[in-house]
């Protein structure tokens, strides 16, 4: 019943043996050394400062949506770094390996990465950037912001929220450990079929990729459920649907995609798993398999997935553009309609990813037209932002710079997307780096939205602002790097550079490649600025007030900075779409509740973390076909869930006196912060 595997297999260790450790590869040894040093430093400092208990209790066991959000963001940043290094390796390899006379090092005929290694790197790059960097970053921001924006104490299901986080972490761990134990998939982030089947890919690489995706998308599905339930059920009194802040609406649209699209991926990967583990014939090349079926299923998820990432970024940009234009968002209802419209139309465009695979003129016509239709709601959004800025009092603080950049990039990515949606154009540039440049522009919109949001909401979470000067340095170097890397890439694609190649035969591409490599170098500079920004801000810690930007509009800026764990001492009554702006206009922004009532809070629990780690063990065991371990850890998860259901888990109650005491302290802190408040760049206060 079980598919026979190449090479040895033992009941105790499955396919795992010492040979799985790539100790002959100098690049991996080097990486391992760095990872080990960083790991030791982190663990060592935790031990040295005696913070083990603190980290366990306050973070790993936390069910607080803000903490969980921050952990998501940290995970996203770490994985962003990993993905970035992958990108650097891809780019430098290609820059070296141009033309038959290019040199070869470390056993490669050209460049320094043999095809076997190179293929794994770009597969990992795509998987990591989309699933383990962009997704956690956005989910994390959603986690932090949405409950605050709707005036809730936490998410609808705080435990489930923690489970989602740790499942995502399990997937990320799987990706990371594949570096040092075994190999990663070489079948690209989409899983080329039937190439990813056992017959052509007998190693553990595809299994790593498959399980990493599987376990983390489970987390994403749970998170989507949680988000929808939070937005539907937990809104503060007075917040009707047309008073829901625009980012929360965007998250709603995204969560609907998450809820409906991710199950399709789950199903597709299950089928691939069955093919690879028990020998079914869903996607095999013979025996009645149909590999186009996989490609359709994958993109049925895959295209909604790109909007799953894009919509929250749109929401972030909307909030920021309106704050820094000191104006209400232009066309709020159309913004919502556009978000929902994009989510809807995103479902019927998937085949534009394989126009060239032969589907007949009718289908091509349909999918081509449907794809172009997405441009309409996207255009509506772009115009709404521009009209928001029009005649607004604009402050060019770092978040706003990022937001404006995002709009420009959206234009570039959108227009090239439109070009690709015309199937005749797509036939000539499909699978060239033109496509790569298109979607990187789009993903950079998301990146810019994320950086904007991190800078913007940072003080709300941590109580102090990020350093503005270094933030701008980071911004400008990042933009310069992006221009250098991705603008030449459009040209290279039109010149015929095929994507995913470890060797370029066409020597005339050399100048373009040189520009791209320079851009990659520039990214290192911007990374340095980013780190410097973090360090300097952490050291200076200038306290920020309740509304550190002075022009924020939505509910989350109404509470203290940093936000206490219960969010609002008393749930606010909502009177307007931009509640804080409304209160400010009525001179009520400083009003505090006069009376407190007891609050019921969920208690923290180590179970979600344990479930996540057991899922990691289970999937790792499945990758190596260690059946007993996989079975045991799965059983343990089921038992833990049952045992927890016998726990009464009633949470705990904060008494009114405790709240009053905490509020008094927080109030003093924010008074101090108000006094030392530094004016943002550009100057907010009108001169008299």
């Amino acid at each position: 019943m079980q598919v026979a595997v190449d090479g040895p297999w033992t009941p105790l260790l499955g396919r795992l043996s010492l040979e799985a450790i790539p100790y002959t590869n100098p690049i991996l040894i080097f990486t391992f050394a760095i990872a080990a040093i960083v790991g030791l430093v982190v663990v060592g400092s935790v031990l040295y400062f005696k913070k083990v208990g603190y980290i366990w209790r306050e973070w790993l066991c936390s069910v607080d949506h803000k903490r969980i959000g921050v952990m998501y963001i940290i995970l996203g940043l770490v994985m962003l770094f990993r993905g970035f290094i992958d990108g650097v390796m891809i780019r430098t390899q290609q820059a070296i390996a141009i033309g038959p006379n290019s040199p070869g090092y470390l056993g490669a005929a050209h460049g320094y990465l043999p095809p076997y290694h190179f293929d794994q790197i770009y597969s990992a790059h795509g998987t990591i950037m989309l699933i383990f960097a962009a997704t956690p970053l956005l989910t994390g921001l959603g986690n932090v912001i949405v409950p605050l924006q709707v005036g809730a104490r936490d998410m609808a299901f705080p435990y489930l929220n923690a489970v989602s986080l740790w499942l995502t972490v399990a997937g990320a761990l799987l990706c990371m450990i594949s570096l040092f134990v075994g190999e990663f998939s070489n079948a690209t982030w989409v899983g080329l079929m039937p190439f990813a089947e056992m017959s052509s890919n007998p190693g553990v690489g595809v299994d790593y990729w498959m399980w990493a995706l599987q376990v983390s998308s489970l987390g994403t599905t749970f998170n989507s459920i949680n988000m929808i339930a939070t937005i539907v059920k937990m809104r503060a009194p007075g917040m009707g649907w047309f008073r829901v802040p625009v980012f929360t609406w965007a998250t709603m649209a995204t969560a609907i995609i998450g809820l409906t699209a991710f199950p399709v991926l789950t199903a597709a990967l299950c089928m691939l798993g069955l093919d690879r583990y028990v020998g079914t014939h869903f996607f095999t090349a013979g025996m009645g398999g149909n590999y186009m079926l996989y490609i359709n299923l994958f993109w049925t998820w895959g295209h909604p997935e790109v909007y799953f990432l894009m919509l929250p970024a749109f929401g972030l940009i909307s909030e920021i553009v309106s704050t820094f234009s000191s104006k209400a968002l232009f066309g709020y209802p159309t913004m919502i309609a556009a978000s929902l419209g994009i989510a809807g139309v995103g479902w019927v465009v998937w085949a534009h990813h394989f126009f060239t695979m032969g589907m007949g003129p009718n289908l091509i016509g349909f999918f081509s037209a449907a794809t172009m239709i997405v441009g309409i709601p996207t255009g509506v959004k772009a115009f709404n932002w521009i009209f928001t800025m029009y005649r607004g009092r604009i402050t060019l603080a770092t978040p706003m710079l990022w937001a404006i950049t995002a709009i420009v990039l959206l234009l570039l990515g959108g227009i090239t997307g439109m070009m690709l949606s015309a199937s005749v154009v797509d036939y000539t540039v499909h699978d060239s780096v033109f496509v790569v440049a298109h979607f990187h522009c789009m993903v950079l919109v998301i990146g810019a939205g994320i950086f904007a949001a991190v800078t913007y909401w940072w003080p709300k979470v941590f109580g102090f602002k990020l350093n503005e000067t270094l933030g701008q340095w980071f911004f400008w170097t990042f933009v310069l790097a992006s221009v250098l890397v991705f603008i030449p890439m459009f040209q290279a694609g039109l010149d015929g550079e095929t994507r995913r190649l470890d060797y370029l035969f066409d020597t005339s591409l050399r100048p373009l490649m040189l520009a791209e490599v320079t851009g990659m170098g520039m990214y290192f500079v911007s990374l340095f600025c980013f780190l410097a920004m973090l360090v300097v801000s952490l050291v200076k810690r200038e306290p920020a007030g309740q509304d550190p930007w002075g022009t924020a509009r939505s509910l989350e800026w109404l509470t203290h900075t940093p936000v206490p764990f219960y969010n609002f001492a008393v749930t606010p009554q909502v009177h307007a779409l931009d509640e804080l702006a409304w209160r400010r206009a009525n001179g009520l922004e400083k009003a505090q509740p006069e009376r407190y009532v007891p609050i019921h809070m969920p208690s923290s629990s180590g179970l979600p973390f344990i479930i996540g780690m057991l899922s990691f063990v289970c999937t790792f065991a499945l990758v190596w076909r260690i059946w007993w371990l996989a079975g045991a850890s799965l059983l343990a998860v089921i038992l833990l869930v049952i045992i927890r259901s016998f726990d009464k888990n009633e949470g705990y109650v904060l008494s009114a006196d405790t709240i009053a005491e905490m509020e008094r302290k927080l109030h003093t802190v924010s008074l101090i912060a108000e006094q030392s408040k530094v004016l943002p760049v550009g100057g907010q206060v009108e001169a008299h």
Partner: protein
Amino acid sequence: MASHTQAGADVVLWNASADAHDNISARTYGFWLYLLSDALIIAAVVACYAVLDNPLNAAGGPLGNQFLSASKGLVQTFLVLGSVLSYSLATVALKRGNKLGVGLGMVGAILLAVLFLGIGMGDLAALSAAGNGFARSGYLSCFFTLIVTHALHMGFGILWMLVMLVQIGVFGFTENVVARLLNLRMFWQFQASVWVVVYIYVYLFGGAH
């Protein structure tokens, strides 16, 4: 807690009674959302079945119309629906707070479900024994997967009912227990609907005799 706007109007800024959320309704709503995503998994498998249900993908092996029996499927359908009925009677008893009634209804639901699974799994075993297992062809892979996916849901539901039987005994009808019983009812109706779809699409439209 009233304050005044600059114009002097009275406004309520804080709402101390807002914390009393209806826990059960939030939980059933969340679970309903989960069922939605589960329904999409089923939909994906059914879509694959529709694609693979043709002689090319049977690779020389049998198609459903050669081995499926519509009458046997009908018996299974009645078993599933009977099981749902039994669980529904349990929820009627729940309304009256009758522990024994809830217990009996669930035991009835479990017994009918086990009978159903016995027939279904027996069929799959016979099919495999005749050399037409899931590895025989793309079509059979998908057929087995569809049936087993539904069966796994049923098995999970049975496990859940067993746990709930214990919890009713230990805790009685607390908020937690009631929320779970209501979710379980949705889940049980969901798996029955899945079976009805399978019966109609795979058995009847598929030309079972």
